[in-house]
């Protein structure tokens, strides 16, 4: 079957609908070296992304040159370059991106660069990391603690710091232990801790949960635990947390917190064998509405189990409803589509 390549329009340049790879590469390289004729961030991003898709190695070498930029008018190119490095990183390109981030003035560009540094480091082979992650973590921490850093950017930096993994955990713990920073970063800390993917972070998240009884905050802690629970099969240390989590499904006072606890617990591979739990979420799907029902639907989807006949009937009703919220219908449909009935 011949695949038709989507059209890419570059001002007056129309890329033919079928074109071989080397010709596309030549065309994009030519256009990418003269971006003064290309307007709009989206077109620039598409261009550089398309170029990187056909020649990632050259793009990684090419992108740092773009990082130098020419004043604020070229912020689109710097953003696109940062994303290119994140998608196909090598250690040198990530170092260059980190250096550019430190001196960048446009806060939107800094935000993209921070996320791209984190994504790039996550994709690098461990053998290439050397001290890069540790260096990046130190830089992120410095920028977070800078009082002139806008809050909007600081939130991005905290999550990006978490993505650096084990190198980030000591910095995040220190922020959590410093009252002034803990208060400012309260909302971001659970997710940032979870992004480290370190089993030890589960205890930190549970501690945050226990210290704040607000339902809105507790749901965020549970969401963060969900990320670590996803790796439950490989993290036996999380077994303790699973028992605690299971208790939250039935003991929490706030019904929405109970529902989010169910969604998080359901992500643990062992949850599918917890027949009482599976029975409970089936019951709650039938007796709840709104955000609670949505969370229980997501819980059932996460268990990967085929629904019992009685629950299947409920799901079919939800999926075909004209009044049920759209997302509820989509989740019900996804569960049914995952376990189609054998017509035979």
């Amino acid at each position, binding site marked *: 079957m011949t695949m038709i390549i989507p059209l890419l329009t570059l001002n007056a340049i129309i890329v033919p609908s079928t074109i071989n790879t080397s010709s596309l590469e030549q065309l994009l390289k030519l256009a990418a070296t003269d971006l003064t004729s290309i307007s709009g961030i989206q077109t620039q991003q598409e261009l550089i992304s398309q170029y990187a898709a056909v020649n990632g190695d050259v793009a990684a070498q090419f992108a740092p040159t773009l990082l130098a930029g020419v004043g604020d008018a070229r912020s689109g190119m710097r953003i696109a370059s940062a*994303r290119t490095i994140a998608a196909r990183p090598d250690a040198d390109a990530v170092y260059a991106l980190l250096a550019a981030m430190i001196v960048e003035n446009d806060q*939107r560009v800094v935000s993209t660069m921070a996320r791209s540094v984190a994504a790039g480091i996550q994709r690098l082979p461990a053998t290439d990391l050397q001290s890069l992650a540790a260096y990046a973590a130190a830089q992120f921490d410095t920028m977070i603690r800078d*009082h002139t850093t806008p809050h*909007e950017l600081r939130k991005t930096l905290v999550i990006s710091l978490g993505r650096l993994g084990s190198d980030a955990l000591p910095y995040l713990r220190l922020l959590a232990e410093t009252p002034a920073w803990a*208060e400012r970063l*309260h909302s971001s800390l659970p997710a940032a801790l979870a992004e480290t993917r370190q089993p030890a972070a589960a205890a930190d998240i549970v501690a945050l949960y226990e210290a704040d009884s607000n339902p809105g905050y507790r749901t965020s802690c549970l969401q963060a635990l969900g990320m670590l629970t996803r790796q439950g099969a490989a993290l036996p240390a999380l077994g303790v947390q699973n028992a605690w989590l299971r208790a939250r499904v039935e003991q929490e006072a706030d019904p929405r917190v109970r529902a989010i606890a169910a969604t998080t617990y359901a992500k643990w591979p062992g949850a599918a064998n917890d027949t009482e739990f599976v029975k409970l979420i089936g019951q709650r799907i039938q007796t709840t509405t709104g955000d609670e029902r949505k969370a229980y639907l997501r819980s059932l989807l996460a268990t990967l189990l085929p629904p019992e006949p009685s629950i299947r009937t409920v799901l079919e009703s939800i999926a075909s409803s004209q009044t049920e919220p*759209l997302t509820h219908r*989509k*989740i019900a449909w996804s569960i049914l589509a995952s376990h189609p009935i054998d017509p035979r």
Partner: protein
Amino acid sequence: MVLSGTVSVSASLLGVTCTNSMTATVAQRSGPTWSTLGSCVEDNEPNWGANLLGMGEPMGEIRDKDSNIWRIIVPQTSEDDWTDGVTVRQASGGPNDGLWYVVGNTLEIDLETVINKFAKSGGPPPEPGATNFYDYNNAAGNCIAADMADFIQALKNHEYRGTPSTAKSLEGHFGRIEYALDLTGDPAQAIEDHAATSQAALISSVNTTIGAIEDSLKLFTAHGTWSDAGPNWGGTGSLGSGTCTEYDIDNSRYYSGCYYGPSHF
């Protein structure tokens, strides 16, 4: 799945080869599954916010309702990973045998705005015995004298849909997301046609597509020239105007002068 293509069949019998081909056009799947609901609840967490001490504490923000962080398209398994938001399947038999494709998705935009409790009328004082932020700034002769109600409303509108509250307003964070979605396209529709020879490759492709949309939405709603202009903060005639002062905790008094405005949100 592929949107269109040419299917070729070739068969040989007794040394004679016959080849035929036809153009197959596959219509994009439509319906509720391939659209993304976007919603935002205003001022949703009454206990949110850090003490306003003149060191960059935010007065308001917009964020994902469940995770409380800056994620727009959810659910995200982790940052920039939408594995939990898509249901995939491997085709069995036929011309697409073995290909992985997206059979459904649970993507949504489920946001909330939050307003700092210390900023609001009746909010807690910065320390025991002190006047709270609202009353101090609202007092005669102070930064937002007799106009703090409008200031707080402008703050709320800045996070939501501008002044007056209007869908797709360019003067509010949520309004800008609504507006930008028309430019980026619906993420559910964007992944409808994705297919790959392995599950991992399909998820990677989905993440790349949705990630680009998420990035574009975040860039479009980031603070820029719109943040402190227009009917929210644009000076004379706007709902909110001016700047406020915050509390110098080291000296147990409010800072003299008025410094903190829209760049604080």
